[in-house]
Structures are given as C-alpha cells and as structure tokens.
C-alpha cells in the first residue's frame, strides 16, 4: 500500500528534523486574558494590539477550494479505505451512513438495501431539474435470540439545522410511519486560515471527504456525546442592554460607542448586536460600538454586552459621526440597563430571538424551515460551540470566535455541518424480523458552477457500509432507480447502466462506495 511505503519513507527523513520535532517547546498563547470562570468552561480572549473589527458578515468557509483528484472509473477491488477513491468536491454533502443501535452488543444481524432514485425534480417554473436523489435506505433486522427485543434504532445523516426541513429522513417500521426524537452531534468540521498560510483559524473548514466523517465517528464518542446531556452554562453574568436609541438625522452612520477599561485577567466581555470594537491589550481599554438604529426605540435584535467575571465600571458613552469612531458628535444617546442573569439565560434569549425574528430574513429561511429546527437541539448546539471552539474553549478557541461575538456563535450553530441522528424505537419479536426504512432527499456533492473546475456539473454521492454502526450486516445491496436521465462518470459500486445492471451486491469489507453522475444533456 502506498501510504505504508510513504510511512516508511518518512522514517528516513533527515535526523535533525526528527530531533527538532522530538521535544518541541510549548508555545504559550501570547495574550491569555481570561481565567476559568466556571467548572465547565475556560474563557480565553486573544486580542491584537489596538485592533478594530467591523461586522462584515464574517468569513465564509466552503470546504476544500481545490478540485480533487480522481483515480478513474471501474470497480475498486482494493478494500483499503482511501479518500482518493472519488472526487474531492468543493461542496461535500456527506455520505449515506448505516443504521446503528443505541444498545451495544445487540447481536442482531441485519440486511441493508440502499436505493438512489434519480427521478428528476422540477424548478419553480416546472421545468425538469436533475439535481440530487431520493434515497431509500432499507434494513431488515432479525432477532435471532429467544426473547423479544426492544431496541432504539439511530439513523445518522449529515446536515445542519438550517437545512433540516429538506434533509430530515422519514421512517417507516414494517410499512407504518414512525416517529422518534432527533439528536444532533457537534460541528463536524474544523477551521482553516483566511488565505494566508499562518496556521490561523479564521475560516470554517467543513468536512470534504468521507474520511473526515470516519475520523469523527470511528470511536463512537461523537454519538455518545450527541446522546448525552447538554452543557450547562450557569455562570452568573452582568448584562448591559442598550435601548432607546437616538441620533441626529443628518448622519447616515451615526454610531454609539461605549468605552471602559477592564482587568483582562478577571473580566470577559461578549457582545451581541454590536458592529465594531477596539481594544488595547496593554491597558485593558475597550470600546464597543453600533450604528444607531435611528428612530427605533428597541432594535429587533437586542444589543447586549455580556460581562463574565469582574463587572465593568466607569464606562463612557460617546456618539460618533460613523463607525470609525474618530469624530465625536452630539445628540447620540441610548438607555443602558444592567441586568443580572446567567449565561444560559442570555443564550436562551438570543436563540429564541434568532428563531423568532432573525433567521427568516438573514438566511432566507421560510416559516417551515424555521419550524423544522428543534429549539432545544439548536440551543444545545450553541452551548456546545461556545465550549468547543467559541469564547469558552480556552486554548481551543478558534480565531473566528476570539472577539466574543455571540452573533457569530448563534448564527453559525444554525448553519454548521453536523451529523444528526433520527431515533426510532423498534420491537422485534423473538425469532422474528422487522423492516425499517428511511427515506430522504440527498443533495449531491458538487463543484461550484463559477469555479471553472472540470467537475462542474458532476454530482457525487457517497456511501459508507459500516462506519459508526454496531449492526452485524449479513448483506448489503445498492440499487439505482429512474437512472434514464443520468450518466455514470465514476463509481466503485459496479453499476452498468448500458447493460442494465442497476442493482449490485456490496462488499462489506469496502468501507466506502462512491457514485458520480452527470445528467444527460
């Protein structure tokens, strides 16, 4: 195997490089400003010298930016898992995962048949659209024990709260519709730099191959955390709410700023609804500002400063001509109300506000899409992000969240890729079997149309046979339906549309299958 040879070859790199890596000096973060304030969370904020940020909508990560390589077509007989079996797309939709059970060592064998139905859909104007596939993932689970068994079937699928309305599978048990709770895992991706190779973590980096999901799900901890209790963030916080906005009408971008000085070792400041910030890490001086929503008593979004640790004091409120906060003007004012809350209560408020009044226009979510988001799961995901990569993550805080903007945390918890689990309770009589069928629409992986990539127009569909599943699969089959309007470009399933081979038996030793198609002209 080539990777093995590469591993051996790496063993021969120069000895001084090996020695250099043997005992690396631990790098200290340059500006550790926050101390541990709760048992669950360590707050760290790293500031640049007199930095100023202005809200620009943030960086938008979109996974790998380069078209990947392919290994050609045909049936793959090598069962070594490899991310290079298929194309690495710019937008990766994630694989179809196998069913698993909440119960360990159930000893229940199962057969699986997965069908991709390529019946074309339509655009809004009614013209045909060959995009995505309706996936039916059917399992026959057999109870070979001598006692009836009740198990919780967990069906994983890649998605986000933002797109849950279109991604959530439906489930039938022996032909009858069934329902069960949904569980959500944490953010499935990582972070990357903003185009400068400096090791920073400004951009989201979504999973871009099945191997990323393999790394995520292989040891079972991701699922366990998804099924576990959510994090409690009951840290007491002082909340400064800004209302009653006024500003002279002759300024287009009149700005309200609040300035104060803190002991950076003892105080953490998070913001929501603010547009700019400046700070000096030498003196602890901070200034946060927002554009005055002229003539509005209370903005649809709250404007909050959330203070953890020692409270702020002796703050100054000043009005400025614009967001640059350089030329002061008269007539800018607001009412600042101090509230005592817990961090959980603040996040409850922000999430509720986001779902009720904000999501509908910022991300173009319609009422049904918003309704499909389970409030409690979304709320839980916000806490998770706060602690995993956000301002409570200590040294793991991504640069992206270093500034403490809760706006980013809340909105991105909504849109981040994650693995969700649809649960359904199933009774299987002794010696009997049950059919569990999941149906969902699966968006393909693809390259962006404007990218100029040779893979524009190619649709990728990934499938994994065993990843994350504790079922004992005695057989797996894959099938295509309504494939008249597609051409298979690359695959390792073994379909042959010309010869009418639209159903194949899968090798359970092959961890990953891929199918890449193009719609017929």
């Amino acid at each position, binding site marked *: 195997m080539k990777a*093995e*040879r590469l591993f051996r070859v790496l063993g*021969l790199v120069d000895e001084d490089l*090996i020695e250099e*890596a043997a005992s690396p000096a631990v790098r200290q973060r340059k500006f550790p400003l926050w101390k541990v304030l709760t048992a669950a969370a360590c707050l760290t904020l790293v500031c640049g010298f007199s930095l100023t940020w202005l809200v620009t909508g943030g960086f938008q990560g979109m996974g790998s930016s380069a078209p990947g390589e392919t290994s050609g077509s045909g049936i793959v007989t090598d069962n070594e898992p490899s991310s290079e079996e298929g194309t690495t797309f710019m937008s990766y939709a994630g694989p179809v995962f196998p069913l698993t059970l909440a119960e360990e060592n159930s000893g229940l064998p199962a057969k699986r048949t997965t069908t991709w139905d390529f019946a074309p859909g339509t655009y809004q104007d009614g013209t045909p659209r060959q995009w995505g596939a309706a996936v039916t993932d059917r399992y026959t689970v057999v109870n070979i024990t001598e006692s009836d068994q009740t198990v919780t079937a967990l069906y994983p699928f890649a998605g986000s709260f933002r797109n849950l309305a279109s991604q959530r599978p439906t489930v039938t048990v022996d032909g009858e519709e069934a329902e069960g709770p949904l569980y959500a895992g944490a953010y499935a991706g990582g972070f990357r*730099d903003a185009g400068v190779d400096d*090791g920073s*973590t400004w951009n989201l980096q979504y999973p871009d191959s099945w191997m990323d999901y393999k790394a995520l799900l292989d040891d079972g901890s991701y699922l366990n955390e998804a099924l576990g209790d959510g994090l409690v963030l009951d840290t007491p916080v002082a909340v400064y709410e800004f209302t009653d906005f006024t500003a002279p009408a002759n300024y287009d971008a009149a700005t309200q700023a609040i300035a104060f000085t803190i002991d950076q070792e003892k105080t953490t400041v998070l913001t929501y609804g603010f547009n700019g910030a400046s700070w000096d890490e030498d003196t602890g001086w901070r200034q946060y500002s927002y554009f005055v929503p002229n003539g509005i008593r209370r903005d649809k979004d709250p404007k909050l400063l959330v203070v953890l640790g020692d409270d702020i004091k002796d703050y100054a409120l000043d009005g400025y001509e614009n967001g640059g906060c350089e030329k002061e003007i008269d007539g800018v004012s607001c009412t600042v109300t101090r509230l005592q809350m817990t961090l959980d209560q603040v996040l409850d408020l922000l999430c509720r506000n986001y779902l009720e009044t904000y999501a509908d226009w910022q991300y173009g979510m319609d009422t049904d899409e918003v309704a499909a988001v389970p409030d409690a799961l979304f709320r839980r995901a916000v806490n998770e992000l706060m602690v995993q990569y956000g301002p409570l993550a200590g040294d793991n805080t*991504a640069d992206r969240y270093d500034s403490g903007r809760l706006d980013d945390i809340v909105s991105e918890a909504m849109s981040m890729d994650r693995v969700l689990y649809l649960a359904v309770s199933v009774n299987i009589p002794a010696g009997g079997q049950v059919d569990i069928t999941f149906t969902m629409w699966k968006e393909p992986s693809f390259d962006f149309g404007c990218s100029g990539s040779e893979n524009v127009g190619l649709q990728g569909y990934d499938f994994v046979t065993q990843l994350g599943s504790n079922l004992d699969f005695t057989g797996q089959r894959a099938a295509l339906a309504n494939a008249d309007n597609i051409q298979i470009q690359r695959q390792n399933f073994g379909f042959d549309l010309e010869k009418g081979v639209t159903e194949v038996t899968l090798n359970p030793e092959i961890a990953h299958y891929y199918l890449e198609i193009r719609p017929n002209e």
Partner: protein
Amino acid sequence: MEDSDIIELYWQRDQSAIAETSEKYGGFLWNIAWNVLRSHGDAEECVNDTYLRTWNAIPPARPSAFRAWLGRITRNLSLDRWKQSRAEKRGGDGMEVLLGELDQCVPAPHGTEQALEDREIAGLISAFLRTLPQELRIMFLRRYWYGEDLADIAVKLGCGQGKVKSSLFRTRKALRAYLEKEGVSL
C-alpha cells in the same frame, strides 16, 4: 550517560548498553510503538526487539543521531507488527487512520514519474519539510513520524486541536503537490 558512551558500550559488547539505552530512551521508544500499535504488549515487544536489533547492528554501525536512529527501528518494527496484527484482525485502527491521512499525500500517477529509492524520496521530503514554518514541520513529524494523536500534539505545541488538524490537512495537500511536481511515484 552520553549517547556516544552508550554506543561505546555496544562496541565493547557490554550488555549494560541495553540497560542504559532502555533507561534513557525506553519511554521515548515505547511511545512511538504505542502510537502505532495501541497495545501495551505489542509495544513492549517492539521496544525489546529494538534493543536486539541495536545490539546486532552496533558494531559495525556508529549512529550519529542515536535517538532518531533508535526511533526509526522501533517505528519500522511497529509498522510490521501492526500489519501482522491487522492480518490477524486484532490490531487497533489508529494506524489505519494515520495511513488514511497519508494517502492524501500520495501523488497521483501521471506516467512520467521516477521510481526513486526510499532514501531519495525521503531526501525530497526533508527538503520539502525545510520549506515549512517550523511549527507546521513539527506538527507534521509528530503526527506522521511519531504517530502522535492530534490532542497530544496540540498540548505539546500549546495550541488547539482544530489548528493541528487544519495545519496537517494543508501540509498533506502541499506535500502531495510537491511530490507530484517532483515526479515522484510511490
């Protein structure tokens, strides 16, 4: 004891050489084996085999960088042991993950590659690593030479796991592009 003194003990066929090696580098070698094998017993055996190989190799060898030299032996023995374990379906999957990641560094074939010897390829990779910022170079080698977990690397380098993961991803892509540019075939 200085490395040169330990090596001298081997040259004198003094069996205390092994005890001295074990005392100074036993933990270092065990960690390498453990990172690959994830089995206490197998790791222990690989380390012991390392001492045996060293005893047989010195003399005539007189390694200049003794620690790296020992580590190489352990690393190769561990890979062999891992392959054997996998064939017997009793091996952990940590190495599978490592190799899966390294797959992303394997250059795509173009038909004009050179069939280079391992040492020549290693020389090219060394040159590539020297072009990287030190932090990225160390991350890469700690992961793929020492086989360390992302979490352990993050702790050692005082940064977050996410940064380690994303940095490794970039380095793998860059190494693959570099090997392709150099026309290397694996």
